[in-house]
């Protein structure tokens, strides 16, 4: 008691001099704990190298026990110094993670580089050439069939027409993506109104061009036709559906809800099956629908429903004041939507729209199940060809397809990120 009485009142609050650090954090013990044994993984990073070095020296090296201990300590300290230099602070959980990560990356890179480059067969005329290096890719398969992957069974002599359409498309898409103001507006107009007609005539035929029936279309060309038709059809349809779903009119609203939820509730493959077996039943006798058109309608309706939900998100994000201000100005419903609400709503949801485009692009592969030969379909056909029946060919074909699809989708997603930054619609901290 007496001690307490003496000690306590001597210091004003906060004036007590610092007590010595706990014994376990200073001196040799403290250093060891902080640097060698701070956490579980940390301890193992010290003990494992020590143990391995000790055992190696004592058992296999024939060194005496004491000598082995010294070697073990030296190795363990060496590992720790390297770890410290490489990773800074002794946050050893992190070090272990980094090492594990580096090993995984090394293993993956090893497999990938060997397959795609070092062990690859670069030119081949058949399965015999491919089989020479079964652990590598057989790029000869891809180069030999490349034109089929691009054009499907489109007649050789007419392929320039596809190329011209492609050049037109690029010439319009580049300004749409990167252009400004009026140039961009013209490009959008041309792309939506003129390009589909010109492209159709060029690729299908008519006006003096030889007709190429759509069952000859295939490869990347068909994939792009389906994707672009889907995109250009689903966006306006999706906007209409979204407006309908937000409408005050119960009949319209419920119709739109039923429509949207129906397509969103079923898998695309069932839609495509339905399109291929039921559309013919819907039409009067004698009228037929070609397979491509059926798939296009299915894809467009399906993606329109998803697009509608994206656009609805944008519409809901517009403050009510904007709608009210527009009607206070005396604008009609359509004018207020076109001039006030939609420009803002669509800007907000551009990333979502691009995501839908990416999903649509990936979904185009499903048409091969109903017998169309899109890019993946032509590759799949190529793999079934007996002339190329080598063990490494399937892997080659799929890796090539994956690279191409990945490049398209990743490009689109990067573009969306760039746009999001430019428009500053993303989350702000």
């Amino acid at each position, binding site marked *: 008691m007496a001690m307490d009485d003496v000690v306590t009142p001597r210091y004003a609050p906060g004036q007590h001099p610092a007590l010595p650090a706990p014994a376990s954090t200073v001196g040799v013990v403290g250093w060891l704990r902080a640097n060698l044994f701070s956490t579980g993984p940390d301890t193992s990073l010290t003990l494992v190298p020590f143990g391995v070095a000790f055992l190696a020296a004592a058992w296999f090296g024939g060194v005496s026990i004491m000598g082995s201990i010294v070697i073990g300590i030296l190795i363990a300290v060496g590992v720790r110094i390297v770890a410290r230099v490489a990773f800074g602070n002794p946050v050893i959980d992190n070090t272990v993670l980094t090492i594990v990560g580096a090993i995984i990356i090394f293993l993956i890179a090893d497999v990938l580089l060997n397959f795609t480059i070092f062990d690859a067969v670069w030119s081949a005329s058949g399965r015999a050439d491919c089989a020479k290096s079964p652990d590598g890719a057989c790029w000869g398969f891809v180069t030999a069939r490349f034109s089929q992957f691009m054009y499907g069974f489109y007649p050789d002599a007419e392929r320039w027409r596809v190329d011209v359409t492609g050049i037109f498309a690029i010439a319009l898409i580049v300004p749409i993506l990167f252009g400004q103001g009026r140039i961009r507006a013209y490009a959008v107009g041309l792309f939506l109104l003129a390009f589909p007609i010109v492209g159709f005539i060029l690729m299908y035929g008519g006006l003096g061009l030889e007709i190429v029936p759509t069952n000859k279309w295939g490869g990347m060309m068909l994939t792009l036709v389906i994707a672009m038709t889907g995109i250009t059809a689903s966006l306006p349809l999706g906007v209409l559906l979204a407006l309908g779903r937000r409408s005050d009119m119960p009949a319209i609203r419920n119709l739109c809800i039923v429509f949207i939820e129906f397509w969103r509730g079923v898998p695309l493959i069932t839609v495509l099956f339905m399109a291929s077996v039921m559309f013919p039943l819907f039409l009067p006798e004698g009228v037929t629908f070609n397979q491509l058109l059926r798939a296009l309608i299915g894809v467009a309706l399906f993606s329109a429903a998803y697009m509608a939900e994206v656009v609805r998100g944008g519409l809901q994000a517009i403050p009510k004041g904007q709608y009210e201000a527009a009607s206070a100005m005396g604008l009609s419903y359509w004018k207020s939507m076109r001039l006030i609400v939609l420009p803002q709503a669509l800007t907000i949801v551009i990333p979502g729209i691009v995501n839908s485009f990416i999903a649509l692009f990936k979904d185009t592969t499903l048409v091969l199940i109903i017998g169309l030969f899109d890019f*993946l379909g032509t590759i799949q056909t190529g793999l079934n060809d007996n002339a190329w029946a080598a063990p490494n060919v399937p892997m080659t074909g799929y890796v090539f397809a994956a690279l191409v699809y990945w490049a398209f989708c990743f490009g689109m997603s990067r573009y969306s990120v760039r746009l999001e930054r430019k428009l500053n619609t993303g989350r702000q901290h």
Partner: protein
Amino acid sequence: MSGAVSVTTETPKVAWFRDPRIRSLVFQAVTLLIVLLVGWYLVDNTIDNMRRQNIASGLGFLNDRAGFDIIQSLVPYTSDSSFGQAFVVGLLNTLLVAIIGIFFATLVGFVVGVARLSSNWLIAKMAAAYVETFRNIPLLLQIFFWYHAVLKPLPGPRDSISLLGVVYLNNRGLYLPSPEPFGGFYIVLGLFAAGIAATLWLLRRERKRQEATGERKPVLWTGLGLIFGVPVLAYFVIMLAVGNPLNFDVPALTGFNFTGGVTIIPELFSLVIALSVYTAAFIAENVRSGIQAVSHGQTEAAYALGFRPNLTMRLIIIPQALRVIIPPMTSQYLNLTKNSSLAVAIAYPDLVAVFMGTTLNQTGQAVEVVAITMGVYLLLSLGTAGLMNWYNARVALVER
């Protein structure tokens, strides 16, 4: 109009065709009429076409003999079974692949999503690379890859890849040992279930006690003892007294193929890998955005209280993030279930392959088959959506 001076309560006179209420009614009526007309036209054409092509109608076909075999079935099925039974087999196969896929996708998705936010640069970049790679490659391509390029070129049964002599992998599938419980094992299982129940009861009692007195005894060790300790003890007692209550039927090579154990056919195996890997990339993004939605102050507060990073994650961030994560994750589960219909491309006998594929081809009753198949998926989707709304309402109440 001359009433501008005096009118205050009277509604202004507007021509009837400019009255928004009337216009809206007319517009709706016209739209409904058009929809009905188009619908009637399509139905009429369909009935006409079906009559002309002699397509039967009605659901009677469900009782007819199917006449085809199915390579994987969870319930007894032979080619003598009916189309209705084939439908059940397909539906169960769809649910099987969906449940296994959801399990692995959640596991991988959470790990990758948390890893994307790691302070370790390499780990974060690896997780980002995983997401960007698998999200941007079409699922169908991934399924083909695993099936045609990885599993099918594997060696045959005689040269199977073996793991410890109990698990075998070859081009006919993955062979796992199957548990074969005897009578006594059900006692162990019963004790296990009783242990879980007792632990839950203990937890509830302690929570109530904490609410009442502020004190709480830890339940962890008691719970572990009840759930695992008691059954394990019982297992050994039974083993000593009666004999081993649980044997494993290990697959063995007899002749040209393996017998015994469970076989996972390559179709199922590749479908599960592809679906899990693909969906995990999306779940990882949901997890990441959910965690980022929890304000950084929470992390700082936890650090200030002395929590370590992994404890902060587990006790502070994840519980709050779950509220944001779960709704989009459910829609990913739904996507996975719907995407499992791509099974038809590698002939895994799921609902679409068995019903919309084979059954439709054999019976030709497109309308009924398409309607039933789509109906099943619609029910699944709407059911999940309903559950989600219920969950949202519940967590919204918890929120202050």
